[in-house]
């Protein structure tokens, strides 16, 4: 079994258009949440989101290429470029043929679909743009990454709602570990700010009317986010041999299904996923120093997740630092776990644990050390990144400081 190194990272999100900008915002506890700009919000009950501010494809893609890409696929390629450049990959024909691409996305290009369907349903135009299908498909992110770098190896997309990117990264990790491939590009991307999608979220009554306050007593729901985070994974030994910078090691991946309810979380299912990740990493609970929580800021998730953490870690739960960075980058759905794996990697690498921003008041149902509002200096050796999706499909990643 081979050890797995993260050698490249890229990100575009409400916190900025590169990993250094993302890292700086987390350290400052600065939230990227603000009034939604890309969609008319006059008929929306909620007003705020975590968008990539002022985004245009222009600095990144020629117009004709962008015509073929929904915003979510553009984000995937932009983050992949940063990750691959940072990793300093030297492409050979063999590497291009064997490298894997595994992306996560929840809604794919539904924004494109939403606009296309307005044409027929609302404007009675009786025709939809011919690129609607190739722009909408959730695998378009992986496909455009493959075309960007000429990668012809195994490439696919995983869609498990809010766990998508964790399932993708975990799968990529196992493919490196098992010797199936020597290079994997993995992560998640999402762009859900389209009127129809926002109305569907509004109807669920889980979106906060103000901001995202995970674990806070007055939390009122999630805030949607967008963007992408992409990683380059390699076998640790090979990465060291070529002198690559190792940001962190991926040491474990655990999954579970709640088999319970299509939207309500289960502490039992979440706990089983955390235990599975610890088992896969061959770690004792006491070795974990930081958890990047799923922490959506819905009343149900945060209380359930807190109970699950207590169930898994027992007394050690009082010595653990836990934070939800969704308070800053928003809930990126299929990209969420990628943002959070990045936040956990940066926490280990920099020795700075990101805070739970927008925190106002402790909740007895979430009695954990949630790093309220201020980042904290702490050298941590092992961290977990939790993802618990609608549909009860859970995925947890375990990371080790490089």
């Amino acid at each position: 079994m081979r050890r797995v190194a993260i050698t490249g990272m890229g990100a575009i999100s409400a916190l900025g258009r590169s990993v250094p900008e993302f890292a700086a915002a987390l350290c400052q506890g600065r939230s990227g949440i603000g009034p939604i700009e890309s969609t008319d919000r006059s008929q929306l009950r909620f007003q705020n989101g975590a968008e990539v501010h002022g985004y245009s494809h222009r600095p990144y893609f020629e117009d004709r290429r962008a015509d073929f890409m929904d915003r979510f696929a553009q984000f995937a390629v932009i983050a992949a470029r940063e990750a691959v450049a940072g990793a300093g990959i030297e492409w050979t024909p063999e590497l291009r043929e064997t490298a894997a691409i595994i992306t996560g996305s929840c809604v794919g290009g539904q924004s494109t679909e939403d606009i296309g369907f307005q044409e027929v349903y609302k404007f009675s135009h009786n025709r939809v743009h011919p690129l609607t299908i190739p722009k909408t498909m959730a695998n378009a992110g992986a496909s455009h990454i493959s075309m960007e770098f000429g990668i012809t190896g195994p490439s696919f997309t995983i869609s498990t709602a809010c766990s998508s990117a964790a399932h993708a990264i975990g799968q990529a990790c196992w493919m490196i570990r098992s010797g199936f491939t020597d290079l994997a590009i993995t992560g998640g991307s999402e762009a859900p700010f389209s009127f129809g999608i926002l109305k569907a979220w509004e109807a669920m009554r889980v979106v906060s009317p103000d901001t995202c306050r995970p674990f806070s007593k007055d939390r009122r729901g999630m805030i949607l986010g967008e963007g992408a985070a992409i990683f380059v994974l390699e076998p640790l030994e090979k990465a060291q041999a070529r002198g690559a910078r190792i940001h962190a090691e991926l040491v474990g991946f655990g999954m579970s299904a709640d088999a319970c309810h299509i939207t309500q979380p289960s502490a039992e299912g979440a706990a089983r996923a955390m235990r599975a990740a610890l088992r896969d990493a061959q770690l004792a609970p006491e070795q974990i120093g930081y958890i990047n929580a799923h922490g959506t800021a819905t009343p149900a998730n945060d209380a359930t997740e807190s109970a699950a953490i207590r169930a898994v870690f027992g007394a050690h739960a009082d010595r653990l630092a836990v934070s939800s960075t969704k308070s800053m980058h928003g809930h990126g759905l299929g990209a969420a776990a990628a943002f959070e794996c990045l936040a956990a990697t940066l926490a280990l690498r920099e020795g700075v644990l990101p805070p739970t921003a927008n925190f106002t008041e402790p909740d007895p149902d979430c009695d954990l050390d949630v790093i309220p509002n201020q980042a904290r200096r702490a050298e941590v050796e092992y961290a977990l990144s939790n993802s618990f999706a609608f549909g009860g499909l859970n995925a947890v990643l375990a990371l080790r400081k490089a």
Partner: protein
Amino acid sequence: MPDDMTERVLKVIATSKRIPLEQVTIDSEFLQLGIDSMDAVEILFALENEFDISIPDDEVRHVRNVRQMVEGVKKLVAAKSAGAAEAPADTAASQ
């Protein structure tokens, strides 16, 4: 006998939850009827359509039984008719 508006609310609950109308009374607790949070969200959606009202999240956070739901709906319907009397042109805004 329940009034007409109460009857309509009971019917919406029974139809959404797909339970016999006889099971739903003004005194029913959601817990008794097996109504969880997602069921409640669906019922709110059906009530908004039935009464042509918009039910804000804040109004529903602490609603736990049928009586509270009926009272909430009556309040919003009354506010709507008062608003319509003052400004008849505004009624379509919530559609």
